[in-house]
């Protein structure tokens, strides 16, 4: 179980690279979404390893708020003409 926990921690690095490298906003958004779901897995594994069942509530709440945040950031960036940069909303 600890091996999986370590692998999950190690997996965060490529996603952070994806966020840093990502050519466009949406790549970064994708990276953030991935990181948040990896953190959920880390919380779940941590609560399973140390037998703390109440930590799962944090995982649920964090999953919901992470997704909602990503949704609204994505909606903020939609309908924008990428050539003109911050084009106005069509």
């Amino acid at each position, binding site marked *: 179980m600890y091996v999986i926990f370590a692998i999950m921690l190690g997996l965060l690095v490529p996603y952070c690279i994806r966020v840093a490298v990502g050519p466009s906003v949406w790549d970064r958004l994708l990276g953030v979404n991935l990181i948040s779901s990896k953190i959920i897995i880390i919380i779940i594994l941590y*609560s399973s390893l140390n037998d703390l069942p109440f930590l799962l509530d944090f995982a649920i709440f964090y999953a919901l708020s992470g997704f909602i945040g990503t949704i609204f950031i994505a909606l903020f960036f939609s*309908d924008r003409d990428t050539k003109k940069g911050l084009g106005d909303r069509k």
Partner: protein
Amino acid sequence: MSILAYIVMGIGVAFMLLGVIGIFKPGKDFYYRILVACKIDTVGLLTLGIGLAIYHGISFFTGKMFLIVIMILVLNPFVAHIVARSASRSGYDSIGDSTDVDESAGEK
């Protein structure tokens, strides 16, 4: 019983590690990446969740884990769809340049 749990979790972790390659594939556009990313996310969490549920047997942990797995199963593709839609509506990295007609521009 825990052997089965470890097998299921191993499959999940294997999926995730393979998925990372999909994200960093050169020469693929954004839509390929988001497809791969969404899939490995959902599959990874699903298998890990089921593995942990098997490992912990019938308990509160399994109940909460079941809730998380169902929630992620529903939410993750939904978020990936919204990100991809906002990217395609903004004309980022449009897939087929041949279809210059932007169908979704009409309905507003």
